[in-house]
């Protein structure tokens, strides 16, 4: 569509509020972040230090671990949480008896404060009085009687990521909503052809909600790249930095007044996020954006 000359003024007028707000609250902070990442700003004084912050960050094992852990969270979400959400959405799309109850129960974690959930799970995983160890002990796995799930290098990450699976409900609801928009004609035709329920799920429902499934993967990756509250509240990146993630790392840098280095970590996180999104966009382009 070609824009007429006399329409340009109006066009600018209408998009100006969005542009101004976007610049004020998004572009300027990013530029400030970028500028401060080249300084040793401690909240009081700042001197230009070039790429020193970036070099130091990439030489730190805990920072590299934070990046790999974030990728670990993203991959788990993309390969486990979202596919699990798809399976549940497919099952619930049959509208079997009690499906609304399941849908509500699975969605409940979304409406509860994440801080409350983190505290609850920290108590469940507690070595001395935790529910998980109590159950394991009572079913004969007494080796785990005092296992410190969140305080053990081998189990801390798995415990954290494991409980994040309860967020499957969010993606399930999105995909379930999409199934509602599929025309009944497809299912009627399949029924006439003698298709079973599983065949309908795999050959009709799943392909028709594929674009939503890929959208959920992108959302899951974005959410998990920003992972903060569960890690901060349950392990604070420990033990031995094994569960460190980027936002907690940045938070720690800010609390010790290394704001310049924290900014550099923030810039790296933005770059990483942009790269991941571009990669996903390229992989999923034909399905998600066409």
């Amino acid at each position, binding site marked *: 569509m070609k824009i007429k000359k006399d329409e340009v003024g109006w066009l600018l007028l209408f998009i100006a509020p969005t542009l101004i707000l976007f610049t004020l609250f998004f572009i300027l902070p990013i530029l400030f972040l970028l500028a401060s990442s080249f300084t040793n700003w401690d*909240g*009081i004084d700042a001197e230009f230090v070039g790429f020193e912050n970036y070099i130091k960050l990439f030489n730190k*094992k805990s920072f590299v671990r934070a990046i790999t852990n974030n990728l670990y969270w993203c991959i788990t979400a993309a390969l486990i949480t979202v596919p699990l959400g798809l399976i549940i959405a497919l099952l619930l799309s049959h509208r079997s008896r009690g499906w609304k109850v399941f849908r509500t129960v699975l969605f409940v974690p979304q409406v509860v404060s994440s801080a409350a959930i983190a505290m609850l799970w920290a108590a469940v995983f507690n070595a001395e009085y935790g529910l998980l160890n109590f159950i394991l002990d009572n079913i004969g796995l007494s080796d785990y009687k005092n296992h*410190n799930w969140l*305080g053990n290098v081998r189990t801390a990450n798995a415990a954290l990521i494991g409980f994040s699976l309860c967020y499957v409900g969010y993606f399930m609801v999105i995909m379930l909503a999409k199934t509602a928009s599929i025309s009944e004609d497809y299912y009627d035709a399949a029924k006439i052809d003698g298709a079973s329920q599983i065949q309908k799920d795999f050959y009709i429902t799943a392909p028709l909600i594929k674009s939503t499934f890929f959208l959920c993967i992108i959302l899951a990756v974005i959410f998990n790249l920003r992972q903060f509250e569960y890690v901060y509240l349950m*392990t604070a990146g420990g*033990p031995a930095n094994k569960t460190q993630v980027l936002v907690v790392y940045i938070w720690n840098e800010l609390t010790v007044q290394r704001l310049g280095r924290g900014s550099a970590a923030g810039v790296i996180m933005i770059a990483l996020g942009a790269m991941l999104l571009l990669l996903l966009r390229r992989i999923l382009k034909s399905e998600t954006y066409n």
Partner: protein
Amino acid sequence: MIKLILKKLSITFIAISFTVISSVASAEITITWPSIWVGKDSKTTVIGELIDEFNAANAGSIKVVVEEQTDYDIYAQKLTAQIATGELPDIMTVGAQLLDVLHRSGKAMDLAPHINSDPHWNNVYPENALQSAMTDGVLSALPYELFVTPVTYNKKILKEAGYDEFPDNYDDFFKMCEAVTANGKVCTSQMTGKNGWTSMLWYSQALASAGGPDIYEKGLDHPAYVKAFEVMEKMYQYTTSDAIGADAGVSGGHFLNERTAVFMNGPWFIARYTSDGIPGLHENIGVAAAPMLMGGEGSPGGYVGGRQSSLAAGKQSDPAKEEAIVKFLKWLTIPENVARLSYSSGAMFIVNADLPNDMDRLFIEMKQGISDAPYVAPIFQNGIGSLAVASEFPQALSALALGDVTPEGAVEMLQDAE
């Protein structure tokens, strides 16, 4: 018509004038204090009483409002952000690790002129206590709470394990831990969550014992840092299974419930042995200096401790508000009020206060310990002089306790954080 309009305008003018005059006349200065002495803190009751009494005495002119901050670490983090943004609260409780940055920010009220203009206020402090707290003649924070952290131990549990006296060296200490463990109890309360407080105190004791009270001036390359981590490595063999990741509530809770035999914390915890401990716990508690490392540069009976909380105020543009804040700070440092605070909580203060004769037995024993101590060395968190190194300590300690690094590796983690 004109008359009616004029009449209405006059009435409106008079009404507005009355409102303005009455609001000016009743202008009450509100002082906000984000305080950590709330909730379960042992100073909560008396601090609350002092604020109520101050507000009552200054009704209509000054009102102190407390913003409750129950998590010490979050409070320190919030304060750090506020110092950086220059948006300081009216009054704040500042830990020793933030004093330097608070001073450098130039955002804190300089209390030196107020102290100098009021000899009585100056006199409630020991000689040179305030002068030594000044930097370049500026007093950014008023020294207030002091602390030492001797060992507190459960005499009953130790007796059951065959020990009447607390060991004075680490070799005997770990033998005692073996005996306690064999008796079905856990020897020490430890933690790596948050700032790793209890374990950090143990580390500070071992550090001063190995490298002497001036260890922080010798740098992280000094072998004492490795030796102290060797002690901690062993200490974690005799602690609860949830120590890694545990916070102060968990580690303190084990001792309060007689699940552990030995615990280290400041005198402010004394009141909690009675209020939160199992019945009879307080009577069973003994106080001792931390064990010594054989061949170390420290001296037997040496303590760690120092300045705990200082009182500071944000810089004010309104002289009336500044005066109101100073008035409240003076109220908090009146010796009688400090004595009340100390009596109820067990906490120690730098202000010269006449304490009652019936102070808690543990408080008296700790005081005696300080008098007898050859030195009171700073704790690691305050002495190391780097927020980054102090914040890496819990991670280095958990890595050590899990066997992920050696004591040398733990020191490298600290060096790497610098």
